[in-house]
């Protein structure tokens, strides 16, 4: 047998061993640490897309918060999209503009106020970025409604805007 084929054999065997070792150490360490991660996150179907930060809420929850006016809704999309249409009573705060617009948009909002951020599309990152930026600025109760604009419209919930 050639040297090369022997090396390839040991590559496969050793890679497997190393992978097993990493798996064992990773899982073992995770078990003993106080801030361990649950290995499989479980939850209702709506929160399937919940991030590891546990920020997201379901459409049903968001609807209830909106109906009872318990939360301030923040639209994280760029202004033209917001102008065309947004969740009723929502304010517009694209995360990349937060330094410029923060005082104007959230100057009157106390830090413990419940805030729900949203944007459009299941893969839209803006609402997550906005939620994160708000947390960094001291807002304690921030939630994300993933794919919020689409879900909200599809459910026929109250919206406003120019409609263009």
């Amino acid at each position, binding site marked *: 047998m050639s040297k090369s084929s022997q090396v390839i054999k*040991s590559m496969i065997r050793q890679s497997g061993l190393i992978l097993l070792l990493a798996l064992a150490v990773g899982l073992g360490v995770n078990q003993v640490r106080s801030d361990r991660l649950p290995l499989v996150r479980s939850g209702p179907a709506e929160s399937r897309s919940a991030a590891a930060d546990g920020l997201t809420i379901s459409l049903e929850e968001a609807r209830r918060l909106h109906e009872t006016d318990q939360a301030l809704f923040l639209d994280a999309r760029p202004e033209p999209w917001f102008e065309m249409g947004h969740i009723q009573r929502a304010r517009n705060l694209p995360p990349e503009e937060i330094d410029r617009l923060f005082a104007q948009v959230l100057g009157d909002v106390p830090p413990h106020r419940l805030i729900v951020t949203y944007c459009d599309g299941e893969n839209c990152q803006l609402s997550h970025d906005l939620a994160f930026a708000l947390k960094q600025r001291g807002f304690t109760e921030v939630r994300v409604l993933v794919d919020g604009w689409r879900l909200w419209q599809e459910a026929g919930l109250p919206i406003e805007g120019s409609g263009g």
Partner: protein
Amino acid sequence: MKRGEGLAFLVRLFLGGVFIYAGLDKIIDPAGFAKIIYNYRIVPEISINLIAVCLPWLEFILGVMLVAGIFRPGTLVLVNLLLLIFLGGLVFNLARGLDVHCGCFTTDASGDPATWLAVVRDAILLALSLGLLVKTVRRPDLTGAKVKE
């Protein structure tokens, strides 16, 4: 000591150091790393936490093995594979315009954005580790893989 062996040794030390350094920050903050993986939007959600818990240790262990020079063929295969996967993830998200944090060397969301610079950095590491891998396959005696005649 044969020619080329000294250089290969230095490359091994360097790559090993990079992997140890990259693994440590993520070992400290698996939750932060899980969020970064989530934002990449490539792997199925159910696997995210398992990856966040084990991948940093894999990087760390590979780094230690590179430095120590044990299990060399297997280590190099995995190092190349990881760098290739990282490269693919970076390029994929840059190409589709997703603004993700690299998460390469820190789980701190304020630094280390995924840019083309990160791609170049990964490509350089990949070139180095590929060089070591080729060397191991072609000249197993030289790079310390234990083989029988």
